């Protein structure tokens, strides 16, 4: 039994015992009082009657008259005159009066009183005894009404006491519940702080818990800080602070693979021409300043637009990834303008070429880089002729654009409404090759063929259809889990998380498949978790009891910066391919991954790796102690 219930029962018991005891004692003592009084009345009346009878000089008629008079004017059951030998000479009697008290009450609290007896004489002669007994019903009635009134009062007092007690218990309960919720949160990996209650015992407990949580938080922050330093060293060019070539290429690959980006994206290459010549002419220090000037112009983009990536490919070559459609040309021109304003300060001969391409994201990275290189080459070629700043844009028009957005939206709605969609399954396996769960991105049937999320998701975001698409995917997954028992993982879009109607509908859907719900995992992006943190907490609180697991996907280098990760109460984190690609070849990257794993483990989170493409990386990741990996290499049957 819970503590609160025990206390409540105890209070109830004490109140009932006190009230019951009071009623019982009072009733019993009143009963005793009534009995004594009635007994005395009998004895005294018998004595005074005997006194009167003894003065009648033995005249039997007078004696009978007096007995009758006493009987008629009093409330007697009987008045009796016995001869000295014990026979009844004269008697007046009537049946006991019923009174108003119920029979059970009279049986339960009897007022049995003996008759009063006194000796009658006539001169020296004993002429017998008188016996009389009064009616007891009026005494019973008084006892009955008194007891009823007492019970009524005690009930009122008892109800008052119960209300006061329940108010008091609730006051105690509130801080206790908060402390318990905090403890449960810690167990579930959510390290939240609570306000200290005023009750001293709970205050100490809460203070201890808060201190513990604070320590976890400090520990986490220290680890995150270390990771940040490590990341700077591993992923970033020491001079300019932007991604190294290797890291940028991994980031590019990951950006092309992920299914929640735009259909069309852009890439801009910037080349500071003749870097060796600049080094020779201006000196290394000034050449570095020129490089930093270029980088600061590029850095403006990732700082203001989420998803943008800047990398130093080599020497004076820089790349800028733009996860948006129709901005590549504009960006290249804006960059050129900015550089044109700042670079001439370093003297003539500082030349920059820019090449920009806009391509469907489904093209492989080699095509992207090739096209961009070609554009850059053309720009350089032009630059040979013109000198200074040159820009070359290659923009390929998007696919299927001509159909128009309205039509797409209608198709999308219809596909979701008609449940025309399927889940593709990518396994996530542990070290021993056991299937942990299946990652199941949703494909919708548009134009008669199944299209991956990368195609329709951007539109769904704009049309605010992600919530229904995600719910559709969850329903499919639950059905599939119920069929084969394999755990399945569904991506939840940030816009779904933001949708107030999403969570109730999701709960409803889960309630229909309580068994299958235990095998369901929900992925969210870092961005979704950060932007809608409160929603994420709510999601966790409501879904965790149903057995659903929550995690982050595409968790990259910025995971360490996700504030309050220690408070989110997640179950797992999937590391982004951009952090993992090429981990086998570089010790620094491996160290970073290992650091991430240690940090996440300390928060009781499972760590999975995404987008693993070859066995070398897979082996390196197992060495980093990941819980599971996924990606093409795993899907194709892991070597």
């Amino acid at each position, binding site marked *: 039994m819970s503590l609160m219930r025990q206390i409540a029962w105890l209070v109830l018991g004490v109140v009932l015992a006190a009230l019951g005891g009071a009623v019982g004692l009072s009733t019993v003592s009143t009963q005793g009082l009534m009995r*004594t009084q009635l*007994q*005395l009345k009998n*004895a005294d009346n018998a*004595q005074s009657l*005997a*006194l009167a009878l*003894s003065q009648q000089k033995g005249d039997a008629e007078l004696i009978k008259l007096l007995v009758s008079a006493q009987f008629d004017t009093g409330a007697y059951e009987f008045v009796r005159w016995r*001869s*000295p*030998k014990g026979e009844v000479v004269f008697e007046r009697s009537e049946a006991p009066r019923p009174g108003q008290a119920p029979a059970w009450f009279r049986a339960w609290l009897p007022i*049995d*009183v*003996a*008759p*009063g*007896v*006194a*000796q009658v*004489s006539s*001169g*020296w*002669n*004993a*002429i017998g*005894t008188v*016996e009389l007994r009064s009616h007891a019903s009026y005494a019973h009635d008084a006892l009955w009404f008194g007891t009823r009134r007492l019970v009524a009062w005690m009930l009122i007092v008892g109800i008052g006491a119960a209300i006061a007690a329940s108010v008091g218990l609730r006051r105690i309960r509130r801080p206790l519940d908060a402390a318990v919720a905090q403890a449960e949160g810690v167990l579930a990996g959510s390290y939240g702080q609570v306000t200290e209650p005023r009750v001293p015992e709970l205050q100490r407990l809460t203070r201890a818990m808060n201190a513990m949580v604070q320590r976890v938080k400090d520990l986490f922050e220290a680890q995150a800080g270390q990771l940040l330093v490590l990341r700077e060293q591993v992923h970033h060019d020491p001079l300019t602070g932007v991604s190294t070539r290797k890291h940028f290429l991994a980031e590019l690959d990951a950006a092309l693979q992920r299914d929640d980006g735009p259909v069309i994206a852009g890439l801009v290459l910037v080349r500071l021409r003749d870097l060796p010549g600049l080094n020779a002419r201006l000196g290394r220090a000034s050449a570095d300043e020129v490089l930093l000037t270029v980088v600061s112009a590029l850095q403006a983009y990732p700082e203001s637009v989420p998803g943008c990536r800047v990398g130093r490919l080599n020497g004076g070559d820089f790349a800028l990834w733009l996860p948006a459609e129709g901005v590549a040309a504009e960006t290249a021109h804006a960059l050129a303008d900015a550089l044109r304003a700042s670079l001439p300060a370093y003297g003539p001969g500082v030349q920059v070429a820019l090449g920009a391409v806009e391509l469907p994201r489904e093209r492989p990275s080699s095509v992207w880089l090739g096209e961009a290189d070609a554009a850059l080459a053309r720009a350089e070629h032009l630059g040979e002729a013109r000198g200074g700043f040159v820009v070359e844009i290659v923009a390929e028009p998007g696919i299927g654009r001509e159909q128009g957005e309205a039509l797409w939206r209608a198709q999308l709605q219809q596909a979701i409404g008609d449940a025309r969609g399927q889940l593709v399954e990518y396994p996530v396996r542990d070290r021993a090759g056991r299937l942990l769960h299946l990652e199941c991105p949703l494909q919708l049937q548009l134009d008669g063929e199944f299209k991956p999320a990368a195609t329709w998701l951007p539109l769904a975001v704009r049309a605010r259809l992600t919530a229904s698409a995600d719910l559709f995917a969850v329903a499919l997954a639950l059905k599939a889990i119920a069929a084969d028992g394999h755990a399945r993982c569904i991506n939840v879009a940030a816009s779904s998380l933001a949708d107030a109607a999403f969570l109730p509908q999701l709960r409803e859907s889960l309630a229909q498949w309580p068994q299958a719900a235990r095998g369901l995992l929900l992925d969210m992006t870092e961005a979704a978790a950060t932007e809608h943190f409160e929603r994420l907490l709510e999601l966790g609180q409501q879904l965790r009891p149903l057995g659903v697991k929550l995690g982050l996907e595409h968790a990259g280098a910025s995971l360490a910066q996700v504030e309050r990760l220690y408070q989110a109460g997640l179950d797992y984190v999937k590391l982004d391919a951009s952090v993992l690609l090429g981990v086998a070849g570089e010790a620094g990257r491996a160290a970073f991954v290992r650091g991430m794993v240690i940090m996440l483990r300390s928060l009781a989170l499972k760590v999975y790796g995404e987008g693993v493409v070859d066995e070398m990386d897979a082996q390196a990741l197992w060495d980093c102690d990941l819980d599971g990996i996924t990606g093409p290499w795993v899907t194709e049957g892991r070597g």
Partner: protein
Amino acid sequence: MLRVVLLPRLRWGWLAALALGPLLAAAAYDVARVLEAAATRGPRVVEQAQALVQQIERSGTHDELLRLKDINDFFNRRLAFREDTVTWGLPDYWATPLESLEKRAGDCEDYAIAKYFSLAAAGVPTARLRMVYVRARLQGQSLAHMVLAYYAEPGSEPLILDNLRPEVLPASQRPDLTPVFSFNTEGLWQGAGQVTAGDPMARLSLWRELVAKVRAEGFI
């Protein structure tokens, strides 16, 4: 037992009544208790009590008429007539046999009481005994008096045990006495069951209080 019942009553009567109420005095003549009660009153009383106990024992073997004479003489000899105001400092006090023996004095009802309970102890049925209020004419004066009457048969002429005339005489030979009202312990405790000296019922009249004390002293 007696001490337990009696002594606390003097000091914390209500508490004793509450706590010891269930401890009853056994309702029968008990020599040991009589002597024990006497012992608390001092060696002189023990001596008197032993004489009384021996007298009761001796009389127990005699017939009832002889018993009447024995007990009548015993108390008429040992007690001096003295008003309650002198003996007890109270206008009226009904003393138990042991109290009277302690003071070696008593007024009319103290004689009657001592004889009543001693005879009861000696085996005379209380139904044959009655305490009688009488009007006595003494030297031309009329005074309220109390005697003990013995009825050998119900309705027969009683024998009178009195301290004014030391011999036991039939009622017809006592024209100086006019009976007014009689009573005894018959029916007094009927139905009341357990009664102790601490019972509030017992202290409601002089007679009831006295009977309760005498029971505690072990006479009946």
